[in-house]
């Protein structure tokens, strides 16, 4: 094992230890906020595996998350299927269903791909309301869906375990040559093809990985909330939050989406006393826009750079 890997593993260990001890120090309300941050991190990682790496921007992630959430919710709520079965089925449906839907889109170039994914999200929003509302609950959605566990602390541990498992697996996967190939597509797809790699295959693999995580996150999320409504899910603000989490933290990394999700969630909570409603997104969006314009690599890099600068200032003083 190389030295940098050891260092990273140590950092992961410290991070996990701190997060596991967190419930001892913070209030239940804060825990609930962080639970949301954990799910958001999952969604952001899912988005980033596809879009952050390959540069194929998906505006349709709520669509994937929606498949996962709705499938599991319907199976358990309408058909009394145990959660242990409904969640894996939901993940499977998302991966396969999502892939079938997106297969034609994956051959499209950049902006067209983005358009099609956007259209899918829209389509899903419309369909969920009109097709079989007896199953989906139509416009109102469903509530009273079985939850996995109760209480903030338990849910916190559950969501954290899920998030950290996904994060570490993705971290490991993205360190392989597969991860490099995906990043290479984002830099210059033609040269990747020119290196003898099938970019369609790579993009498909990235997409399926992304859909898998989205489905997993979506299914667990719905069994945490205990309810689901189309408007909250297929909402531009939700889409925005996912994408911005990944970007503001730092795209094409794993820590980036995690950090971004935490940052955005906490910011959103901090703004709540001042601006209770959707108006928060004005500040939220402006910050995102500024960070994105001036530090496209994201906040993590910004923080590290600043630390570096401070260190060099201190060392030059002494």
């Amino acid at each position, binding site marked *: 094992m190389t030295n940098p890997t050891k260092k990273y593993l140590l950092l992961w260990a410290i991070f996990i230890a701190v997060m596991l001890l967190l419930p001892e120090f913070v209030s239940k309300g804060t825990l609930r906020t962080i639970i949301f941050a954990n799910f958001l991190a999952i969604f952001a990682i899912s988005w980033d595996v596809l879009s952050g790496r390959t*540069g194929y*921007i998906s*505006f349709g992630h709520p669509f994937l998350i929606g498949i996962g959430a709705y499938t599991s919710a319907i199976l358990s709520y309408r058909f009394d299927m145990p959660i242990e079965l409904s969640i894996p089925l939901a993940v499977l449906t998302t991966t396969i269903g999502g892939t079938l839907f997106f297969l034609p889109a994956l051959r499209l170039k*950049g*902006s067209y791909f*983005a*358009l099609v994914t*956007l*259209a899918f999200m*829209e389509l899903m*929003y*419309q369909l969920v309301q*009109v097709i079989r509302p007896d199953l989906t609950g139509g416009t109102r959605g469903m509530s009273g869906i079985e939850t996995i566990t109760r209480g903030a602390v338990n849910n916190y541990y559950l969501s954290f375990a899920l998030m950290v498992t996904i994060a570490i697996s993705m971290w490991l996967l993205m360190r392989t040559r597969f991860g490099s190939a995906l990043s290479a597509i984002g830099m210059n797809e033609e040269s990747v093809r020119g290196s003898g790699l099938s970019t369609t295959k790579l993009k498909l693999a990235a997409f399926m990985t992304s859909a898998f995580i989205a489905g997993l996150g979506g299914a667990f999320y719905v069994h945490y909330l205990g309810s689901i409504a189309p*408007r909250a899910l297929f*909402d*531009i*603000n939700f*889409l*925005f939050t996912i*994408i*911005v989490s990944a*970007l503001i933290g730092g795209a094409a990394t794993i820590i980036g989406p995690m950090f971004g999700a935490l940052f955005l969630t906490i910011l959103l909570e901090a703004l709540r006393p001042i*601006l209770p*409603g*959707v*108006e*928060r*997104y*004005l500040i*939220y*969006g*402006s910050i*995102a*826009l500024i960070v*994105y*314009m001036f530090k*496209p690599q994201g906040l993590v890099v910004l923080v590290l750079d600043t630390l570096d600068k401070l260190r060099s200032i201190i060392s030059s003083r002494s």
Partner: protein
Amino acid sequence: MLQILIQGLLLSGLYALIAVGFTLIFSVGRVLNLAYGAYLVIGGYVYFYFAQSLGLPKPLVMAMAVVCGCLVGVLKYRLIVKPLKGNHVAVEISTLILAVVIQAGIVLLFKDSPKILHPIVSGVWRVGGATITFNILTAAVSSWLIFGGLYLFVRKTHTGRAMEAVSMDTKGAVISGIRPDRINLITWGYIWRLGCNCRGIFCELYPAFPGYVGCAVNHCGCGGYRGWYRFDLGYLAGGPYYWIHGNYFNLFDRR
């Protein structure tokens, strides 16, 4: 049925116009302007505020809407599109963020309840069982006029030809960023008309992402501000017609 058909037919011009605005940027600059829908919303609110709340004369307010739209478009271009130097991904994402910001800004200023816009031209005309408001009629006629004007602009003027050239050669795309934006702005200056269909009751139109797969606009404002980027199934009657136009009149995309 007849009602839907006629209404769809009349409105399709308007939708086509919106679609063209969107595709203009897309084909000339090769980027999706996801804030496009937000432009249209701004136009609607300018009309609502100045014409209805303050009671300024309608023609003046229309002009204001156009100017205001141009301003937003140029600002966006200067502050966001240009510094990002033609990086598609970055531009698209920042327009998404901008859309969210504008939307939140509007909610902050006007609250999120739908605003009722009065028809600009009142009166109705009955044909068979169908009722056609003069408002829609004016909207349709003027959209087609603008449409024609736009077509002539593209074909006959220097700027128009330049834009066309740019759309074929992406290298020059950035140069034209302002122009198509401006045309969008002109386009959305007209949404007040859109805002006046729907039995004159409500009418805020939140069209957005027009020009893609034929689904674009939410008239009748079913969703309040949230609906601004929604696609209205009720419009499907006029949809195919509009769709053909949206594609056929895609003046720039020559690839």
